[in-house]
């Protein structure tokens, strides 16, 4: 019945035997459904050890077949930072919510702002977060973020007191269905300060200064000389 044959892919005869492919597909399926978290490709391969030599290509074909098989179902195979997982298609979210209406609590604005600063500025110290927000960051918020495994300490800044440096985790990305930090919505641009001055009619600098607010000034004031843009993942982003 439902089984996709994989016949759409032209394989040189005998390269991969179809039975093996099918076995890998089912093994991967079992592992993905059993896992509570996304599964990394290497763990998927490990699960198929008994099925013979599994190379990347074979694994990908098996994943492709799974994706195909579930293409008209209520769930889908997706990839995020931590690897692959099955998830309920978003058009069924309301149905699922109706069946379990205990809504997760809303996140407070204080927590979200703190999280955003960590996500876009990482690695960052608590003092730096406070400098941006203009208020103290409560211990409870930092703890909740870590408890939730969205944020962790990746090191300590080599300044007096060696404050902890915070960064977001892989589960943070997984929970948002993202593969990489760059997939976060971009930060709004901040207009150049020269711009500020001339707009304010203060003529602190020459009138044409505002033109160079251009391409170079992407997102982000540059705080400690680090990149303010979302892109660079912290080096230690392992799991």
């Amino acid at each position: 019945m439902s089984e996709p044959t994989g016949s759409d892919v032209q394989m040189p005869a005998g390269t991969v035997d179809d039975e093996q492919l099918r076995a890998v597909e089912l093994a991967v399926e079992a592992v993905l459904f059993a896992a509570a978290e996304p599964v990394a490709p290497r763990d998927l391969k490990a699960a198929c050890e008994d099925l013979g030599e599994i190379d990347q290509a074979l694994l990908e074909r098996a994943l492709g077949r799974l994706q195909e098989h579930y293409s008209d179902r209520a769930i889908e195979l997706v990839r995020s930072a931590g690897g692959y997982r099955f998830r309920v298609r978003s058009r069924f979210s309301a149905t699922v919510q109706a069946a379990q209406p205990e809504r997760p609590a809303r996140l407070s604005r204080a927590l979200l702002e703190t999280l955003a600063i960590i996500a876009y500025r990482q690695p960052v110290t608590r003092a730096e977060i406070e400098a941006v927000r203009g208020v103290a960051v409560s211990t409870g918020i930092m703890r909740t973020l870590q408890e939730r495994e969205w944020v962790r300490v990746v090191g300590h800044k080599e300044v007096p007191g060696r404050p902890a440096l915070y960064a977001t985790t892989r589960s943070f990305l997984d929970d948002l269905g993202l593969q990489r930090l760059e997939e976060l919505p971009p930060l709004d641009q901040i207009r150049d300060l020269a711009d500020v001055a001339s707009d304010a009619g203060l003529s602190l600098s020459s009138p044409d200064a505002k033109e160079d607010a251009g391409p170079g000034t992407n997102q982000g004031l540059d705080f400690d000389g680090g990149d303010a843009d979302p892109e660079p993942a912290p080096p230690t982003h392992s799991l």
Partner: protein
Amino acid sequence: MDPYADSSDDLERPATVETGAHGEVLYRVHGEPVAELPADLYIPPDALEVFLDSFEGPLDLLLYLIRRQNLDILSIPIAEITRQYMGYIEVMQALRLELAGEYLVMAALLAEIKSRMLLPRPKEAEADEDADPRMALIRQLQEYEQFKIAAERVDALPRMDRDVFAAGASVEALEGPPPPGPTLDELMEALAAVMHRASLMAHHHVSTEQLSVRERMSNILDSLHPERFTDFVTLLLVAEGRQGVVVSFLAVLELTKAGLVEWGQSEPYSPIRLRRRGAPVGDEGGEPA
């Protein structure tokens, strides 16, 4: 969505504000309710109410003041904004609301900027950005707003367990070495950690007495049937002695209080019976497989 509609974890809740029966906020000064707020402060009462729970700090309040007038951050009329900001602070203080120190620091900063702007600037300083005392503040405001917006966007992303749901299946006992079990120590440590986090210990005493009631609650709930009534008396096992009966009785009371069981009596003086509220868990009920 109203960005100010959410509550803040950080702001102190002022002791002098209460929520009335209809959800309106009541202000009190020296114990007297304040019916009207001072007139010429540019503070609509609803804005004050917003202030009470929703600003994330002085930057947030300033942004609010600026945005409320459709002003660009880049061209803040510092004197006017300062006046308004001070107005809020004064009212807060008049109402003896506890203000986070940051608000006062900002008030001082605004006052300083204002006074510096009144002074004539030395000509050579004009080339320097720092010459405009507003610059640092504007920069800070822009940066804060940038992350404030980013926070809203991050919150709007579909999130696991809120908007999207993982698809999983259960797994029967796996072969191989048994998984680690919980040890009592681990369990206690974990609980201590939660309690710690929640600062729950305040006035809490749950004795083993109550724990036995909890256990009995689970057991009774499990033994009750949603469709058939069970004679209440059969739940009180005389064999357990007086204490056992008391525990069962308390358990039934707790279940009743929690709305988990319902009572029935076919006629006066007939046996009191009870059943689990709601339809069967499974169609045939009974033990989980």
